[in-house]
């Protein structure tokens, strides 16, 4: 069973379709830390900030209601 999503704005900038936030976070926050791990961020190529995403997951319920996720 397959659902193929039409290619997004890379093909046609006018047909902009926002990507799912969760798919985006998988990628921009490095691999797979979206669930419960810590993110490491490079600040001024020295210091590392570690933040917990547990609070984030907990607050998702509030976020999800206004937008009908797709």
């Amino acid at each position: 069973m397959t659902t193929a999503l039409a290619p997004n704005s890379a093909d046609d900038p006018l047909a902009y379709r926002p990507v799912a936030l969760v798919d985006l976070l998988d990628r921009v926050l490095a691999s797979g830390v979206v669930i419960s791990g810590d993110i490491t961020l490079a600040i001024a190529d020295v210091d590392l900030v570690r933040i917990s995403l547990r609070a984030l997951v907990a607050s998702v319920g509030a976020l999800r209601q206004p937008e009908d996720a797709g």
Partner: protein
Amino acid sequence: MVDVAADLSAPPAGAWLHGVVRDAEPATFAAIGGMDGGPVRAVSAAGLVAVVSTAPLDEYGEEPLRRNLEDLAWLERAARAHHAVVEALARRGPVVPARLATVHTDDERVAGSLAARRAELVATLERLAGRGEWGVKGYLVPGAATAAADTAGGAGVGTAYLRRRRAQLTAREERQQVASAAADAVHSALCELAVAGRRHAPQDRRLSGASAPMVLNGAYLVDVAALSRFTELVDSLGGRYPGLHLELTGPWPAYSFVAERPEPALTVRGPG
């Protein structure tokens, strides 16, 4: 710390790195809106161009950033703004996307990173040319065909219930195992056609809002020339494994294939 005290009205600003490209016309950047909506800037060094947004440190400095990243609305806005820049760059050619919230205190530090990492960045840009990242997510199909629970023959009602219940539990476990094996097989098959593949952790359903559990969250680096074969393969794998619902996303900038330290998951492997 940077000496920017001349203009007291403006807070000190760092540079939020979006990505690194080989070269680009300055006019390119005027059209791309950065973190605050203003145009992004180019920092050139060592024959490479880093594309950055001005990042006032009262919002993007270490402490404010730590706080802001815990705020989902802020995080979403930042992730989408960052992605919009990276995607605009990817449309023009290869780009090494920076991880979210890579902030340097000033442009010189950005230039320093370009120089220090030049060989690695150039090699990555070459590897990404003519290729795009595609995502394939696999969900467990609820109640997918399993062996029918046998009806109780010649046993009491209670025994029949227990047997039926056990069969249900076993069926669910079996379905999970079958789906997990199918996810492995799908990933291996896609890796054979892709230049590289890796698996992200399955998404938390509280974040994705998906109704079914995810068993595959794959990312694949695919040659443009092989793209139609890749999408056909996804289709045919969907048919071959009816217990999985496959979903294709992309094209993405190659976020998943630019790790500083190559992880084992980055390399393509044969099945098993």
